[in-house]
C-alpha cells in the first residue's frame, strides 16, 4: 500500500500533461452522421471496397485506412449514393486533417472569444477573394466565387423592395443563433440588411479552432450550409483569422482550403 500511492501520483503526473497536450492540439470536430444526419464526433460507415465486399470504417479513427482504400480506387465502387458516402467520409477525414495539419496551440488567439453564431456579416469577407470596395464598385471585376466557400455577396441587392424602404426596417447584417436569412443592401450607413425568414441564407453548422496555416495565429474554421428554397445542402467552409480584436476577419493566408463534396453537375 505504501508503495502504491507514490506510484499512483507518479502516473498521474506523467499522464495528465499528455492528455492536456492532446486535447489542446487535436481538434475533435462534429460531423453529420451518415443516414441519420445526427451531430456526432465519430461514426461508423460501411462502404463498398469491391463489387461484392464492404468494409466498415470508424471515422475519424479509420481515416488513414479510408485514405488507403481510396488510393486503391475503392471510391468508385457502389451506387451513386454509396459513392457519395465515400466522398462524405473522405471530406470528413480531410477536414480533420485540415484542422490538425499544424499541431500545437497557436500563441496568438483573437478568434476564440468571438461569438461567430451571432457574428456581423460585415466582419466576414463578403466574397472571399474579392475586396468589398471592388465588389461594390465593380463586381464583375471580382474573381469568381471560390468554390466550397460561402458567398454573402449573392444576397446583396441593388434595389430595395418597395414595402421595405423604411429605414427602420434595415438592421445590422448579422447571424442570429448561427442563422442568417435575408437581403443585404449598401446604404449610406454601410451594409444593412432586411432579415427574412423565407429568404435564402447560411446556417453555421460548427465553429472549430485551429492554426490551419501554421502562422502561430489561431484561426476559426466555420462550416456552413446554405438554407432557403433551392439551396444545395452541401457543406461550405470558411476559415477566418485575425491578428487583433479590432480587425475584420480574413482568410488565413497560405492554407490549402479543402474542397468538399462532389463537383456541381
Amino acid at each position, binding site marked *: 500500500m505504501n508503495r502504491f500511492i507514490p506510484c499512483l501520483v507518479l502516473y498521474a503526473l506523467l499522464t495528465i500533461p499528455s492528455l492536456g497536450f492532446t486535447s489542446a492540439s487535436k481538434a475533435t470536430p462534429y460531423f453529420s452522421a451518415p443516414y*441519420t444526419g445526427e451531430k456526432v464526433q465519430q461514426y461508423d460507415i460501411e462502404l463498398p471496397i469491391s463489387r461484392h465486399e464492404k468494409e466498415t470504417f470508424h471515422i475519424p479513427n479509420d481515416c488513414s485506412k479510408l485514405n488507403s482504400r481510396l488510393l486503391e480506387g475503392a471510391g468508385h465502387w457502389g451506387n451513386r*449514393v454509396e459513392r*457519395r458516402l465515400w466522398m462524405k467520409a473522405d471530406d470528413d477525414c480531410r477536414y480533420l486533417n485540415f484542422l490538425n495539419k499544424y499541431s500545437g496551440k497557436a500563441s496568438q488567439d483573437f478568434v476564440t472569444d468571438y461569438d461567430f453564431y451571432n457574428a456581423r456579416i460585415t466582419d466576414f469577407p463578403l466574397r472571399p477573394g474579392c475586396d468589398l470596395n471592388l465588389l461594390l464598385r465593380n463586381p464583375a471585376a471580382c474573381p469568381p466565387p471560390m468554390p466550397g466557400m460561402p458567398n454573402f455577396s449573392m444576397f446583396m441587392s441593388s434595389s430595395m423592395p418597395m414595402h421595405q424602404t423604411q429605414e427602420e426596417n434595415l438592421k445590422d447584417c448579422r447571424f442570429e443563433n*448561427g442563422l442568417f436569412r435575408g437581403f443585404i443592401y449598401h446604404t449610406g450607413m454601410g451594409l444593412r440588411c432586411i432579415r427574412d425568414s423565407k429568404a435564402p441564407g447560411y446556417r453555421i453548422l460548427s465553429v472549430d479552432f485551429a492554426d490551419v496555416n501554421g502562422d502561430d495565429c489561431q484561426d476559426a474554421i466555420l462550416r*456552413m450550409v446554405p438554407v432557403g428554397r433551392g*439551396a*444545395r445542402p452541401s457543406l461550405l467552409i470558411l476559415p477566418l483569422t485575425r491578428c487583433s480584436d479590432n480587425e475584420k476577419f480574413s482568410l488565413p493566408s497560405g492554407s490549402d482550403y479543402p474542397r468538399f463534396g462532389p463537383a456541381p453537375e
Partner: protein
Amino acid sequence: MNRILCYFSGHPVIGLAIILLLTAIASSQIGKVEVRISADEMLVQNNEEQEYYRQIQTLFGDEQVNLLYLESEDLLARDKLEALRQTLDKLQKLPYVKKTESLFSVPWVKTVDGYLDKKPYLAKLPKTTEESQRILNEARKNPFLRNILLSPQRDVMAIAIVMQKPDGDAPQWNDESVTRDLNTLAEELRPWYKTSFCIGFPQVRAEIADRIRAEQTSLFPLAIAALLIALFLLLRQVIDILLPIMTAGFSIVWTLGFMGAADIPINVVTSIIPILLIIVGSTEDIHLLAEFRHGQKAGLDATAALKHMSRRMGGIILLTFITTYLGFLSVGLSRIEALWQFGLVASTGLALNFIATIILIPSVLALAGKWQLDGKARIYGGKTRLLAKRYWEWLWRHRLSIIIFFLLWALVAISGIPHIHINHNAIDSLGKDSEVRKKIELVNENLAGLESLSIIVESGIEDTFLKVRYLEELDEIQKYIREKGWSESTTSFADYLSLLNAAFQELDEPLMPESDDIITELMIFLNHKDVSAYVSEDFSRARILVRHSMESSEQLQATLKDLQNFIDHNLDAGLRARITGDSVLTLSATNAMIRGQLQSIAILLVIIVLIIGVLFTELKVGLLAALPNFFPVIVMFGFMGYADIPLNIGTTMAAAIAIGIAVDDTLHFMLRYNRELQARKSHNIAMEYTIYGEALPVVSTSVALIAGFLVFTQASFEPIIQFGALGALVIATALIADFIITPLAVSSLRLVTIWDVLSLRLRKKVLEKSPLFKNLKPWQIRQFILSGRMVEYNKGDFVFRRGQVSTELYVLLTGTVEVCLPGSGKKSCNLLERFTPGDVFGDVALFANIPRKTDAVVKEHSTVLVLTREGIERTMRHRPLISARIFSNLTSDLSRRMIKLISKQEMKNRNQNNDGGRKS
C-alpha cells in the same frame, strides 16, 4: 339407376347399414372443419396480377394496416399521451405486432442547429397546449401522417399497427385472438378518448366468422322449419316430410366430413352449403316419394309401388341430379378460391345427397312405406284432374296473349339489365348496421380510408429515382390523383425527399428538391430502410401508395381506368407504370367472378340444351326446354337492375345454381309429357295428365325451394341475403315458366326420348329392311316411328277386325300376322296375305278412310308398331322430306301388294279354269 333403387328396396337393411357406415366415417372428419376467413380466398388465384402483387409486397411490404382510431378534443394532452404510450408498449409486446407507427415513432424530419433531427413528433411529451398544437400543426404537414394517422381538420389520430406475417401452417394467433386483444387495448383508452377502437381487415374477417357461426345456429333450424312446413302443407305424409330432412341431414354430415378431410374451411360462401343441401337435396326425394304415392294411389302395394317408383323415376332423377350437379359445379369454374371451394363442396354435397336419396328412400319406404298412406294428399283427387284439364284448355286458348305477356315481361326485364352495378367489397357485405362497418365509415370519413392501391413506376435503370425529372413524374401522378379527389392520401419517395429537402433548406412546407445535386446531397442522410416501402434499393423502381375509401367496384374501376389513361398519356417514355394492390386485386377478382359466373350460366344453358337435345334426340327440344330456364335468369338480372342489387359474390352464384335446380322441373315435366303422349296418344290429353301428374311434385319442390332460399334473407351478409332473395325469385319464376312456357313450348313438339331410341335399336334390323323405310336414314326412321307405340299381341289376338274404324297402320316387328276376309262356317278366315317382320299392313283402309274390310289375326306372339293417322299427319307437317319418302315407299309397297294380289287372283282364276276344264 332403376336397379340400384330396386336393390335397396329389396335390401333395406343393407341400405341403412351403408348410410350409417358413411356417416360414421364422415363424423370422424368433421372435427377438422374450421371457420376460416381469409382475404386471399376472395381473390383470383394463381394469376399473373396476383403474382406481380406478391413480388411488390416482397419488395415494398404490405399495404394493409390495422388502425387504432382515437378521437378526443385535446388529442395531445399529457395524460392522454401517457395512457396511449402505455397502450403502445402493450401493443408492441403482442407477438403478432411487427411495429406500430404513430406520432411516437414517425420521424419529425427537421434540422436543429443545422443538423438533421429525425426524432419522432412525440419524442418528448408536450407540456403546454401551445406546444401540442405546434406539434399537431407540424405533423399535419407531413404527407406520411396527414389523413393516414392524423385528420387534417378534426381531432382524430390513429396508430398504425403493422402485423407480422404468420410463420408456418399453425400461427399462434388468428383473427379472433387479434381482434380480442386489440379491442381490449382500445377499450382501455376509453377513459381518455371520446372514441377509441381498433379496425382493420382482421376485425372484418373476425366479424364475418362470428356471423357465420351465429348464422349456422340460427338459419339452420329456420331452413329445416321452412322445408318441413312446405312439405307438410303439400304432402301431409309424415314419412314423406321426414325423409327429405333425413337425406339432407346425412348428406350434410358427409359433406362436412369431406370438407374436414379436404381441409376446405367454412367461409362466407361455403357456410351456406348445409342449408342449400336441405333445400336443394329435397327435390329428388319429393319426386321419388310422389311417384311412390302415385303407385300406391293406383292400388299397388308397397313393393309394387317401389318398383313403379324405380321404373318411372330412376332415370329421371339421375338426369335431374346431373343438371343440378352441373349447376353447382359450374360455380366452381371460378378462379376465385371461395367460389371454387363452394363449387367443389356444393357439387360434392349434392352428389352425396343423391347417394343418400337413392339408398335411404327405397330402404325406408321398403320398411315403412306401407304405414304412411293415409290418403290425405288430396291433390290427387278427381277435382285436380279436372282443374288440370281446364287449366290446359285455358292456357291453349290464350296462348297468344300469354306469349305476348311473357315477351313483354322479358323485354321489361332486359331493359333493367343495363342498370346492374357491380360491388364485390367484403366490407359492404357486412350490412349497414354492422359495428365494424360503422367504424370503417368513421375511418373513411376522418382519415384516408382502409382501402389501398399501389402505382409501381419503374425504368429498369439504377438510380432513376435519384433524378428530379423522374421524381416529378411521381409527383405528377400524385397531383392528378389529388385533383381528382378520390384519395386523401398519396405517398411516395418524392414526398420523403421533399420532407428531407425542406428540413435542410429550413422551409415551412415540404418541397421537392430542385436539382439532382440536391438529391445526391440529401441521400447521404437517407437510410433506405426509412423509404423501403417506396423505392427499391437500386432506385430503379418506385411505389406510390394510395389510400382511399372507395367501396364501389364500379367507381373503383372507372377511377383506375381514368388513372391508367392519365399514366399512359403523360408518363415519361422511359418509365413504365402499373397499378396493383389490394383494391386492384379485388377489382380483378370482381371482374373474374362476374365473367366466370356469366360463363357458368352460358355453359350450363348449353349443357342443358345438349342434355335435353340428346335426351329427346332433337336440338330444337333442348332449345325450347332452355326457354323456361333462361327466362328466370333474364327476370333475375332485370330485377337486380331495378332493385339496385349489385353483382357480387352471392348474387353471381344465384343464377347458375337456380338454373341447375329449376331445370329439374322442366325435365320432369317433359319426360312425363313424353310418357303420357305415348300412352294417351292425344297431345291435349297427354298435357292434361302431365300437368295433373307434375303439379304436386313440381309445386312442392318449388315451394320448398322458395321457402329454403328465403331463409337466406334472414342472414346478416348482404350477398347471402341477396342470394336468397334472387334464388327464390328464380325458382318462383321458373315455376311459373314451367307451367306456362314449358307446356306451350313442348305441346308443339313430338318428344322422343333417348330411351325410346335405345329400345328401338333392338329392332333396327327389322325396321331397316321394312319396305316402308326404304332409302331412309336410321335417324329418319327413328324420328318417324317414335311417334307411334309398340303393342304386344298373343297368338289368336286380332290386331284389327272387319268393320272397325281405320285410324292406324301397322309395322310388324316380330311374329306373324295374317290378314284375311272373314269366312263362313268352318273356314273362319280366307287368307289374303301373311305378314312377316318388317311388313306394313292396315294401310289400305286407313288411306281409303273406310272401315276395315278384313281381320288381322296374330298367328304367333307378335310385336307391332302402331302408327296413327294423327302421327303420320304430324310428320307430314313437321318433316315433309321424311313424309315424302314414306309415302313413296308406301305407294311402292301398296303397288307391290296389289300386283301380288292380282297375280294371286289370276293364279286362282287360272286354277279355277283348269279345274273347270278338267271337270268338263
